[in-house]
């Protein structure tokens, strides 16, 4: 019985994911195909393009697949992907899979650090603000979070670069490794050193949302009937908060934090661009600018899968932590 339910759940989620991938790949292909941008022109430059012989141009157009109809392109791509071939990134002149593999590890590192940091600090700040509602602490935290919520991620990145890399020279001016050292040769220490500024930027922005949300939740709890009953039974404010707050907070905070993966990803695109950090986001930007269809489609799929996994983990954790789901209706 239980096993069956588990299988059922896994099957359902897998089907959802496959449908998601198919639809997104189609949408992405369609969007790339209707674009008026000519990849040949984009990648050779204005002057070179004008001076190019017609044969050369035709050859390049062939290479970029400019004249292949979109349906044919898609079916070719789909056939290949079933065999595990994600195509070739024309921009990077490498198999898409290897570009993504390298970039994704870089991005993942960045995002995980930022995600954990913003989650923990956001929660703490939110609790502090909620508990001391209306007091100075609350006003400062609220002000901080509201300001950050309006701050463009990339501008904060620029500011960090300016202060910590240019003026103070504490941190390097971008990239994931020292200049002249390839990713394979760089030590872990070097990589972490390069990671700090972008990760910090991403975390500082990420804190805002979760802090504000947690604050609201704390206030909700402090106005709830069960909190009132706890007080009526003689628990002090501190006891009542300890007994009833954290547990009721963690669930929504967790959901929110997993749901924010999409935003952290979006933020990482901008931050990577600012810090010239060779992650997936930066690859997406150059694929978009250069009209690198295969890479763009692959990144869309990977990012969607990433978000999907985040939501899935949130759902599963919810089922494990929340007794109403665990004992009530079970998974799915």
């Amino acid at each position: 019985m239980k096993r069956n339910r588990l299988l059922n759940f896994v099957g359902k989620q897998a089907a959802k994911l496959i449908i998601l991938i198919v639809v997104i790949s189609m949408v992405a292909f369609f969007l790339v195909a209707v674009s008026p941008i000519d990849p040949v022109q984009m990648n050779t430059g204005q002057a070179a393009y004008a001076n190019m012989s017609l044969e050369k141009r035709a050859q390049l157009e062939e290479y970029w697949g400019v004249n292949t109809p979109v349906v044919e392109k898609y079916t070719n791509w789909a056939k290949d992907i079933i065999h595990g071939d994600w195509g070739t990134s024309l921009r990077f002149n490498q198999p898409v899979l290897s570009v993504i593999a390298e970039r994704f590890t870089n991005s993942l590192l960045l995002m995980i650090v930022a995600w954990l940091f913003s989650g923990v600090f956001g929660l703490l700040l939110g609790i502090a603000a909620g508990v001391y509602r209306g007091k100075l602490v609350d006003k400062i935290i609220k002000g901080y979070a509201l300001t950050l919520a309006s701050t463009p991620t990339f501008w904060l990145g620029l500011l960090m670069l300016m202060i910590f890399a240019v003026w103070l020279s504490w941190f390097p001016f971008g990239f994931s490794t020292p200049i002249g050292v390839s990713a394979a040769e760089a030590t872990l220490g070097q990589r972490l050193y390069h990671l700090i500024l972008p990760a910090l930027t991403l975390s500082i922005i990420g804190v805002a949302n979760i802090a504000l949300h947690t604050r609201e939740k704390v206030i909700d709890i402090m106005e709830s009937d069960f909190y009132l009953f706890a007080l009526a039974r003689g628990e002090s404010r501190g006891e009542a908060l300890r007994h009833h707050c954290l547990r009721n907070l963690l669930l929504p905070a967790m959901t929110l934090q997993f749901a924010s993966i999409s935003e952290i990803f979006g933020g990482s695109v901008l931050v990577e661009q600012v810090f010239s950090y060779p992650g997936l986001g930066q690859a997406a930007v150059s694929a978009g600018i250069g009209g690198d269809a295969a890479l763009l489609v692959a990144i869309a799929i990977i990012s969607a899968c990433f978000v999907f996994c985040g939501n899935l983990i949130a759902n599963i954790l919810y089922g494990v932590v929340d007794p109403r789901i665990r004992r009530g209706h079970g998974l799915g």
Partner: protein
Amino acid sequence: MTCLTKKHILEIENLSVSFLQYDKGMRQRSLQVITNLSVSVHEGEIVAVVGASGSGKSLLAHAVLGLLPANADVSGTLRFEGKPLTAASIAALRGKGITLVPQSIAYLDPLLKAGKAVRKNKRDAGARKKQRELFAHFQLDPATENLYPFELSGGMARRVLLAAALMDDPRLIIADEPTPGLDLELAKKALADFRAFADQGNGVLLITHDIELALSVADRIAVFYAGTTVEEAPVIDFEAETTLRHPYTKALWRALPENGFAALPGNQPYVKAMPKGCPFGPRCSLFSPSCEGEIPLKTIRCGTVRCIKATGSVEV
């Protein structure tokens, strides 16, 4: 029967509660929801405060426990076992001397198991033993302590809430509408539990809209009208209209389905448009201009009444 020989547990005198609110416009005004309310509970007694829902009586429980929101003004004299209370001493009494039995399961933390909730998260053996004894006393299966609130049935939830209230040996229980949602059988069982608690020399302040239920269990009834108690009388006085003191209580009596079902015209005054003096004045057959002045509390035949026309004699 002699009056007031037993020791007081709780005395409430001239309790007033008002809220600071904004009108539709931009004026800040204070809205008086409870005015000069007086009621007392003696040892071994269940006192019911009855009144229509929305008349502000549920605020009474929160006011006594000092749990009203920050925009409330509360004033009045409270005495617990003879000692006057201050805001600080009220806080110290919560859960120890006075405890609340709330009206529904919403007052339990949805993520806390029943046993743990009753023990207030305490893990020591003493608390655990006491909680198990209470569960056994209320005929709750020992497995109940591992259930979450959403898994409790209506009757179980009521007993869990009661067990929670009794955890710290209170002297007084304030029960805020403990019976809605329960059918008559369950409601009677709930009230029997309160009776048993009171019979051990404790007090119960029962706040309810259900006069039928109140009459069947309480020792004394305080009648709540438009934010104040107009009469406090032993339950036996409700057996006939003539033994009651206040014109409103009499009208109430006449309106009961078993006593004639007679409707008195008019309505309770709106909180923003209270009449001067006696709130019942506009509907009262005995009304005279002097009713618009201050109405003192009178003691007549072991009961109190807030009416200048009330006399000690029993009209026939």
